[in-house]
């Protein structure tokens, strides 16, 4: 029997064979993967996982693929950094950074979900993959497709910045600029996915794609010595990452890999695009879509597909949500860089900014074992901090000039 039992509707529970479908034919609810947990329980163990590959594929028993012909075999197993300096600054005894700024090959957590999506797509017989993206997702799909020798289409809004277009073109996918706004691109891609026999990673392959995010939960638990954290702070765009980390923690508990799940799940958004956090703070179980206006572009999803489920997961875990201004995003990026030496993209600034707020509000306590999820590399969004990092010291090429600039005496040591 396969470890994958079916695709199941998250709304009405109707089951479907695990093919390239994503919407329930009955109620139009989203589909997700249902596993044969009883069978997996018989084979999975901490020891087996620890002896697995040095990548997220050590958790293959809980990922929706059938073969071992993996596309993206090096994704995941990124460092869980004990953030002593940042923890001391914020007033948390045990703070960790899950550092996906160094994920392979494109330096964001998207390499996890895309690796799963393309592996499954090839298993299902697809040779062409596609996505609609303005940044990290496009980079990852294009890179993985190039390495796998698959045809690739990337759809982007026609007014996207040149640097971001270049980041995709280097892998030589078919980059399609769609004349229109984000809504037009959304609609076109949905219709193309319905018409053409392609694997659209975040449309008809989405049930598999989204499962890749669970590996962030699995790795965190293993790297903490098979413990779940007290608090997790997670950036939200579609809300999928947060819901899958919650699902991953519960799978580990159901399979006996951890004794309990005590984690409070906290969601982070930028104020310029905070439909989920705003709904949570207002006590609503539904969100109102917004037009994004924030520097945190990788989180700028105004009508998030998993917003409802993110609200539900956070409420179940007794966690919280909050949002930060663009200025606080930049401060968050700088704070993480200057305390821990980790340069995160704007989504990381959102996470650190919200972490800071939750500590100030007393929702995260000094003694809470806390993990903050940093999902992308700062080199991707340098424009966000270019005016906030100061200038280099400029000197004439003389020793005297150097010593004057740094107020050093003639024979003083290196540090003065």
């Amino acid at each position, binding site marked *: 029997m396969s470890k994958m039992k079916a695709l199941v509707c998250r709304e009405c529970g109707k089951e479907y064979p695990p093919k390239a479908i994503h919407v329930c034919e009955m109620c*139009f609810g989203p589909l997700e993967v249902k596993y044969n947990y009883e069978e997996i329980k018989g084979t999975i163990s901490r020891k087996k996982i620890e002896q697995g590959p040095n990548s997220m594929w050590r958790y293959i028993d809980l990922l929706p693929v059938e073969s071992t012909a993996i596309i993206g075999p090096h994704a995941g197993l990124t460092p869980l950094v004990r953030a002593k300096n940042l923890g001391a600054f914020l007033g948390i005894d045990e703070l960790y950074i899950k550092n996906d700024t160094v994920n392979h090959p494109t330096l964001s957590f998207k390499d996890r979900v895309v690796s799963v999506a393309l592996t499954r797509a090839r298993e299902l017989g697809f040779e062409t993959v596609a996505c609609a993206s303005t940044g990290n997702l496009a980079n990852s799909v294009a890179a993985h497709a190039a390495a796998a020798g698959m045809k690739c289409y990337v759809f982007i809004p026609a007014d996207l910045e040149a640097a971001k277009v270049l980041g995709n073109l280097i892998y030589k996918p078919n980059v399609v600029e769609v004349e229109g706004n984000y809504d037009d691109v*959304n609609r076109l891609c949905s219709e193309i996915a319905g018409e053409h026999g392609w694997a659209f990673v975040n449309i008809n392959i989405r049930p598999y794609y989204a499962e890749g995010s669970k590996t962030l939960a699995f790795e965190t638990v293993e790297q903490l010595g098979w413990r779940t954290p007290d608090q997790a702070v997670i950036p939200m765009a579609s809300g999928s990452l947060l819901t899958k980390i919650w699902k991953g923690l519960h799978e580990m508990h159901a399979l006996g890999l951890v004794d309990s799940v005590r984690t409070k799940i906290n969601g982070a958004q930028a104020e310029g695009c905070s439909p989920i956090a705003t709904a949570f703070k207002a006590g609503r179980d539904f969100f109102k879509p917004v037009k994004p206006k924030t520097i945190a572009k990788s989180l700028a999803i105004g009508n998030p597909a998993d917003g409802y489920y993110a609200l539900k997961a956070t409420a179940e875990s007794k966690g919280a949500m909050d949002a930060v201004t663009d200025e606080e995003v930049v401060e968050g990026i700088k704070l993480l860089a200057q305390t821990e030496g980790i340069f995160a993209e704007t989504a990381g600034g959102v996470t650190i900014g919200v972490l800071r707020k939750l500590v100030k509000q007393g929702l995260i306590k000094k003694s809470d074992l806390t993990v903050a999820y940093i999902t992308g590399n700062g080199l991707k969004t340098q424009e966000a901090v270019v005016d906030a990092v100061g200038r280099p010291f400029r000197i004439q090429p003389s020793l005297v000039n150097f010593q004057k600039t740094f107020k050093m005496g003639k024979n003083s040591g290196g540090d003065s």
Partner: protein
Amino acid sequence: MTSLRFHIRFPENKIKEPIIYQIGHEFKVVTNVRRADVRETTGWMDLELTGETEEIERAIDGIRTKGCVVDPIELNVVE
């Protein structure tokens, strides 16, 4: 004939209006509501429209003209 799926949102001032009934009369499309949540101040529905592609496009424009917001069933897919 084509069938396309949409997520329709109703602003508060449109909740009482029989917009889907009107669309079924004004355009040659079959309207089929699969899931909905209508409350005092907000409402949405997941709707299937079946017909010729161009007629579906016209029906979508018609729903928008009546003040509703139309998204694909997947909501935002640009990530």
